[in-house]
């Protein structure tokens, strides 16, 4: 058995930032396990720019952003193993992994940081009727083929889903010579950034059809046509609104799901809303010594926030192995509740005794709100009330809780975040 103080599962932006912050907190013995042939994770195929405005105050492409972290990990001599697949994590933090050179290895970790990222929702989960020919790709698979491998997955393209990856791929495919005919979006709003709608679609005159979905896929060997239709308020197709597009490719950009197979095996409790682990303010799961950060915890829209969150997981894991938190824990943590328009919060609980001075609570809303208020309640008392011109499901929101305020409040049981009209 090999021993490490901290083992990090995943060498993408979350894993890299977690490793660096754990090192900064004084942990020597850190190991990153990465299943791909290089560090950097999904950023390697996100060759568009727009990363790092918060972290580095400049706009970087995905590979450049990743490199800033990889370079530091290498300089700090933090150990990592590539092409290494983690097969299992046990409750007592034994990590079983495998690669070509070493076979199956078992590592006893003082603490484990989950940083496995997320995957795309496949067609099957969308229940799109029709044939099942070649030419149906998730947007990320197409992105990998075009950007890393240098192959064209299609010439005439229809895209379902207007999340950022779908929008970015509309531009990439167009620039590489494909004809992107339409982007259909099931919801009455796009989950993508306005900037991407303008610069990836409008710039190339690609129509965006909101409240539309794919109702048929034709083609026995390869896609030959896709039919889209308008949907009603229950997201059911409206007969008579069908439009048929001849095309050879359908890209799907219909949401991301945190990849938590390993977490489930370890007995980690998952949230039904985020599909990620239920964590405390220190990003610790219900299994002591196992922490989570990045897209495996909840899907982020900006990598800068992933790095920030991961740094915190790194600090918490460091504290855990240095054993400096145990005594300070309160008996009952305060529960964070998401209500009236708020779908979830991360973290799910906060311990005023051990929390950092400021806690960023991330949340997402379930619909578009204009000129509404984000309110925070301590028990039943409203303590914060902030006006927002717009809140949209595509954008992660935050409120900041102060340790001092939480400690001052008598008998604090719950902190609730709500969206209110006034």
């Amino acid at each position, binding site marked *: 058995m090999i021993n490490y103080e901290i083992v990090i599962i995943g060498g993408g932006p979350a894993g890299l930032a977690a490793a660096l912050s754990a090192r900064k907190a004084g942990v020597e013995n850190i190991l990153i396990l990465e299943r791909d042939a290089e560090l950097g994770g999904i950023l390697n195929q996100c060759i568009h720019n727009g990363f790092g405005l918060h972290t580095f105050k400049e706009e970087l492409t995905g590979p450049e952003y990743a490199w800033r972290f990889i370079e530091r990990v290498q300089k700090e001599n933090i150990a990592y193993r590539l092409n290494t697949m983690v097969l299992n994590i046990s409750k007592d933090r034994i990590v079983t992994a495998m690669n070509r050179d070493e076979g199956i290895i078992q590592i006893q970790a003082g603490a484990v940081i989950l940083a496995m990222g997320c995957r*795309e929702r496949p067609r099957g989960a969308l229940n799109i009727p029709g*044939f099942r*020919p070649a030419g149906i790709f998730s947007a990320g698979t197409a992105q990998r083929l*075009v950007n890393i491998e240098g*192959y064209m997955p299609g010439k005439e393209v229809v895209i379902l889903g207007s999340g950022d990856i779908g929008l970015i791929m509309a531009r990439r495919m167009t620039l590489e010579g494909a004809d992107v005919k339409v982007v259909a979006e099931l919801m009455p709003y796009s989950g993508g950034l306005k900037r991407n709608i303008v610069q990836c679609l409008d710039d190339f005159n690609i129509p965006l059809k909101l409240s539309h979905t794919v109702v048929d896929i034709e083609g026995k*060997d390869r896609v030959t046509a896709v039919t889209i239709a308008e949907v009603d308020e229950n997201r059911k197709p409206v007969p008579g609104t069908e439009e048929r597009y001849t095309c050879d490719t359908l890209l799907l950009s219909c949401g991301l799901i945190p990849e938590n197979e390993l977490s489930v095996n370890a007995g980690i409790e998952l949230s039904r809303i985020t599909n990620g682990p239920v964590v405390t303010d220190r990003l610790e799961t219900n299994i002591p010594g196992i922490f989570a950060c990045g897209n495996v915890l909840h899907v982020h829209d900006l990598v800068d926030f992933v790095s920030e969150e991961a740094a915190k997981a790194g600090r918490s894991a460091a504290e855990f192995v240095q054993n400096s938190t145990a005594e300070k824990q309160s008996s009952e943590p305060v529960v964070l509740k998401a209500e009236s328009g708020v779908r979830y919060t991360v973290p799910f609980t906060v311990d005023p005794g051990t929390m950092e001075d400021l806690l960023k609570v991330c949340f997402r809303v379930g619909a578009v709100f204009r000129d509404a208020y984000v309110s925070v309640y301590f028990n039943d008392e409203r303590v914060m009330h902030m006006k927002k011109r717009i809140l949209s499901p595509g954008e992660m929101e935050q409120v900041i809780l102060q340790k001092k305020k939480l400690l001052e409040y008598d008998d604090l049981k719950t902190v609730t975040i709500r969206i209110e009209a006034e």
Partner: protein
Amino acid sequence: MFDVIIIGAGVTGCAAARELSRYQAEICVIDKCEDVGEGTSKANSAVIHAGFDAPAGSLMAEMNVRGNELMGPLCEELDVPFKRNGALVVCVRKDALDGLQELYDRGIANGVKGMKILNRSEALQMEPNLSESVQGALYAPSSGIICPFILTEALAENACANGVEFRLGTKAENVFRDEQGIWHIGTDKGELLSRAVVNAAGVYADVIHNMVSENKIHITPRRGEYLLLDKDAGTHVSHTIFPQPTKLGKGVLVTPTIHGNLIVGPTAQDIEDREGINTSSEGLQTITVKANEQVRNLPLRKVITSFAGLRAHEDHHEFIIGEVKDAPYFFDCAGIESPGLASSPAIGEKISLLIKEKLSLQEKKDWNPRRKGITDPRKLTMEKRNELIRKEPAYGNIICRCESVSEGEILDAIRRTPGARTLDGVKRRVRAGMGRCQAGFCSPKVMEILHRELDIPYEEITKGGKDGVIVFGRTKNVQGGEA
């Protein structure tokens, strides 16, 4: 010239080929598709029915019960995963309880062993997720679940190992017998000659039959749509759960698969298009409604994919197996719809005996009934697995994350005969791409392996069908070289 040409490399054709490979004969299997088992064999319930359903005295009943019996030893010989998980036919209406007795009696007449009629509480005890309204059930312990892909591949591989030739991607276009009594099969790859022909062409079996016989038969493609659920949902039921049968078939069943998923389906819709394996929103909707009649709380949000298959429904709902009266040395295996998968070993046995007699074939001395399956490293101990990786490091390289499939298994699948040549071929053999991400992550990697192993350019690698290319060539006007 061949002694026997088998048209169709589905489970029936492959079972016939494997049984015929016992004899000294030149045998060839042709199929229009690029892989074995590309038709009905790849899209069905994957259930080995017990045999209480087919009318007593029918060939269908005989083949089903015999096939079910043979399946155990066959799977043992061919290293095919198969499990007798038992079936429950669930009655949800008090006034329909007689129907269970009827099925039971028919099963007894057909020779089905071990059946029992259960009352409500016995049924619920055996399967706690049955519907609240369950009144009783027929239990048939000999019913089983199998991987229909692996069964078909294993039969083909074993046939191949015993000298049978497979010509895939070869479509029979016309068939006739000349004055000397030689059968000519015109294909898109030239003409083949044979002493005898087996028609195992699935939904096209009537087309082939009608080329040689005045006694026309008619087959309707009957489409069945299915939902496949995540392994998370695979233990929702442990038996194969049927409703009481109707005229259109056995109805929508709910069953675990041999690989631990849950499958729900099929619908039954007669269509014209013999390639019409598309799903429909009505069909998918029907499944969800029907399945919930027998089973409660089906976790339908766990669906990872939906698909459709075609059953070769003959007008009289009966198997047609044997020499065609006005076409000597031409043997039909037609109308092989459900329970065709369960019947396949029996059909192979029956057809091979008929042909053996007709052609006076001699047994081979060195016939090898055994085939070794693709090693599943997950089933090895850690020590054994490490030993394997030391010998063949590709087994340490995971390609499909969802199903945890290594490069070693994929290489094995490609290097077999007949081997995987397409993404779907790899998927059906080792499950790479069969999991919850549905090949999003692994397809570029599997393409790379196919490219390297088979020396086919990326732009010629297909998902399955001939024209089902994945990419249309490279980006950029100038190309570099590899390091």
